[in-house]
């Protein structure tokens, strides 16, 4: 049995997000999704209506882009134009509505 220890806050933060009803979705960026994702990237918490919003948390750039090897966190909306994969966080129902049921998402 292994107990949790150490100073790793990433998992703590993610479990807090899960507790607050947020769900993480790894999506493949397609042309029709691009607009939706760009909106999620721009929504830098304008109002407090985020509880229904989806937030773009990370993108991976296209192979031919100079910075393709890394994930880029907290990207701006433009980054999605050259992205191939993305992590989106939001309410499960919201994610389903925007990106379809998880079964359709490439995993």
């Amino acid at each position, binding site marked *: 049995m292994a107990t*949790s220890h150490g100073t790793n806050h990433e998992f703590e933060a993610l479990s807090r997000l899960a507790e607050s009803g947020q769900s993480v979705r790894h999506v493949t960026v397609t042309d029709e999704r691009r607009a939706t994702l760009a909106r999620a990237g721009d929504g830098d918490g304008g109002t407090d209506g985020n509880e229904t919003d989806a937030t773009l948390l990370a993108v991976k750039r296209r192979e031919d882009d100079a910075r393709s090897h890394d994930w880029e966190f907290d990207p701006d909306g433009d980054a999605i134009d050259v992205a191939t994969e993305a992590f989106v966080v939001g309410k499960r129902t919201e994610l389903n509505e925007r990106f379809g049921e998880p079964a359709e998402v490439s*995993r």
Partner: protein
Amino acid sequence: MTSLGGATVGTALAVDWTLTALVHILGFGLLACLAATGVTFVYRGYSTRSIPTGGAVLVGVSAVALWLNAAIGLDGEVVVSETVGGGTPLANRASAAYLLGVFVVSGVTAELGRRLGDHLGCEVFDITTLDARGEVATLVRSAGLVVEVELPETIEDIDGYSPADDGIKRDLAGRTMLVPRRLTLDELRERLPARLRRDFDVDHVHLELAAGGAVDHLAIGVQPDGIGPSLPSETVAVAIRSDPSPAASTGDPVEVWTDGGESSRLVTTGTIRATLGDVTTVVIDAAHADAFATDETYRLVMQPATPDDGHELASVLRAAEETVTVVDVEPDGPLRGEFVGWLPGRVLVLERGDELLPFPGANRTLEAGDTVFVLGSPTQLRQLLAYDSEREDERSERRGPRSRDGGSSSGSDVETADADTESGFPRGVLSKLTQ
């Protein structure tokens, strides 16, 4: 007389034995020397580096040990020479002295052989050893090809990563690194960490440079090992023997049931971390950890709930330079009354009492007692920890690129932010207004 004659013969024999033994010891020494020379020479040729002293000496002494082993053979007698009195028993002072002599001499000659082999190797393979402080290095420096960058005396840890070994830190503290000239600050900022990562076996390097290129602050960290650091607080990972469910993968929610046929009952629910054969590691709530028995087999039932990609994100985050830090807003601390949007980095969750606010709006004000989870690069997180609300210039600089975020989506955010900069309201007033 006979006894005297016997003694003379005995003495002669002993002298003879000693002489032969000495010659043998020298012979073995030569063998060790040759073996060490050979291996050092070959090592130099292949790797262009010098062999570690211990390695060469070990090879030399091993050659001798192998030979001796064969010579002692099955009868357990140390044969110095067949002609001088045959073998002596293994547990005997003369044998002990002989063997000890052989190994001491071999050790010394092996080291000599290593030096010889190294020298030969350098000559034959045309390898020139360069000392970073030697003459050539000075020459390169005086030609203006390299500049020295001195690392600070204290190497710090990066919050959120496992601290690096003390030995590495001692090695780095105050060290002079040589870097090519005509690097811009940005290039240096990229190059120096890359070198440190490659040469010193650390995973994360964070450094801050002064205008002149001097290193102001250096922090290093290593990737945490094992499962412990990757578990959320108040959970435990338990390896249980179970029916493998073929469709289950990491991060999938499961129910754990006892495998008791009719009397099967639900033990707990958790998420799968790993599966190997019929053993599955499940992350469960710490409170349910005692519910498992060692020799029990369990049944895993997939929960109908849709799986979550949080684990994937977590592993991506774990590998990336960015990390998450936690800050508490103190009643009289600098963060109190600040807007979420002003913090360097991205606020993931704001914990206010029992309430959790995921991705709080940029115009939310931080209150005393709040706990904030912030995602950011090491530089951003350091800025956050050293946050000082009086540094107006720095903030407006930081907010510059941020304005693109609010531009299209949220009118209210832009308004509040602009009101602050343009009206020149004192800070306190503005945060009161928003509260």
